[in-house]
């Protein structure tokens, strides 16, 4: 269950409040919407009363044809279900009997000037984004050649310094330190920065810097889909690091599997250039070319040819 402020809903979808009943926020579990045509006809067996109810032209004209007693009876049952809110579309005139019911059961009643399908489309998009699961992670999110790279690792390992070098090379900063991650679809995570600290960075020894002011508007971007995670850690001589790149590692964030690259940090290693290479390599893989596999294939061909002769 998520709470959505009524004021935000009204503002984002350009709605008009007919009656708000003092309701400040509405509680919703899904972004699904219900059109109550069948319920106006008296069929309440399957009634998704926990959804936002949208009354369009067909529902409204059906109601106007219904005889008075039936109409009032069905509307009373409809509004008595403790609905989150009811929206009337197309800027239609709202008959007094509907307003009376809304007032009786203290149900917010709103009006949109958009056509029903357009409003429903916008409503679902808005609710999907508002109801999306979210989490805050420690790291730096960058856009490198259009690839969303989340740099992670302990404090003080040099994430911000690597990010600065990447910004200097023309890549873009999304968020430093705290990255707010939102699951907007089955396999899609979007990261952005908390509003308060957007495009600020902390560099040890210098303090707080404003990346947008220092490097210009081209060095920053507000939000970005996360494509891969690069995990920075101190070089461990006892650990084996990937030499071929044939095995893919993953990390799970909000149930989404993201490719993960472990980056061992050693003095004198230029990590920015390695992040760039990883981004290019990822794009190449997306286009169907896998360097390690290609080399492996060539080697196999070579071995085959030589063993034939």
């Amino acid at each position: 269950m998520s709470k959505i402020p009524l004021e935000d809903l009204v503002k984002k979808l350009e709605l008009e409040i007919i009656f708000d009943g003092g309701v400040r926020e509405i509680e919703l579990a899904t972004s699904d919407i219900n059109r109550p045509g069948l319920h106006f006809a008296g069929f309440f067996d399957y009634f998704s009363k926990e959804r936002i109810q949208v009354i369009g032209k067909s529902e409204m004209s059906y109601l106007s044809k219904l005889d008075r007693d039936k109409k009032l009876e069905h509307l009373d049952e409809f509004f008595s279900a403790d609905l989150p809110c009811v929206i009337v579309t197309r800027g239609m005139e709202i008959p007094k009997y509907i307003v009376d019911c809304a007032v009786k059961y203290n149900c917010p009643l709103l009006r949109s000037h958009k056509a029903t399908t357009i409003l429903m489309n916008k409503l679902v998009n808005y609710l999907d984004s508002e109801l999306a699961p979210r989490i805050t992670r420690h790291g730096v999110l960058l856009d490198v050649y259009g690839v969303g790279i989340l740099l992670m690792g302990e404090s003080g390992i040099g994430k911000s310094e690597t990010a600065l070098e990447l910004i200097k090379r023309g890549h873009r900063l999304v968020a430093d330190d705290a990255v707010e991650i939102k699951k907007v679809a089955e396999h899609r995570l979007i990261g952005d920065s908390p509003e308060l600290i957007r495009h600020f960075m902390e560099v040890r020894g210098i303090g707080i810097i404003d990346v947008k002011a220092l490097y210009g508007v081209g060095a920053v971007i507000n939000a970005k889909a996360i494509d891969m995670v690069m995990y920075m850690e101190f070089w461990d001589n006892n650990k084996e690091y990937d030499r071929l790149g044939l095995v893919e590692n993953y990390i799970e964030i909000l149930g989404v599997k993201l490719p993960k690259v472990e980056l061992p940090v050693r003095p004198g290693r230029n990590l920015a250039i390695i992040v760039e290479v990883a981004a290019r390599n990822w794009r190449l893989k997306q286009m169907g070319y896998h360097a390690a596999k290609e080399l492996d294939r060539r080697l196999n061909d070579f071995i085959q040819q030589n063993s034939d002769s």
Partner: protein
Amino acid sequence: MIEKEFVIDNEAGLHARPAARLIKAADAFDSEIRIIKGDKIGNAKSLLSVLALGIFKGNKITIQADGPDEVSALYRISRLIENNFVEED
């Protein structure tokens, strides 16, 4: 893991200077230290992450410490918060 709740009594809230003192105190410990306000969690060793929480006077926050020196870490930070972020000598 241990934790303690506080109500911020500092007139101007947790603005840049007090926050800097808080992270300096937290940074001296090996334990992982989190600062929680509502449903937001910040890393107490990272200045921006603490500032991003937007903590002001009257806010209820929770400090969580997790690691080998969690007891002394939480003690040190409690003292700092109770002293309204004025550093002791």
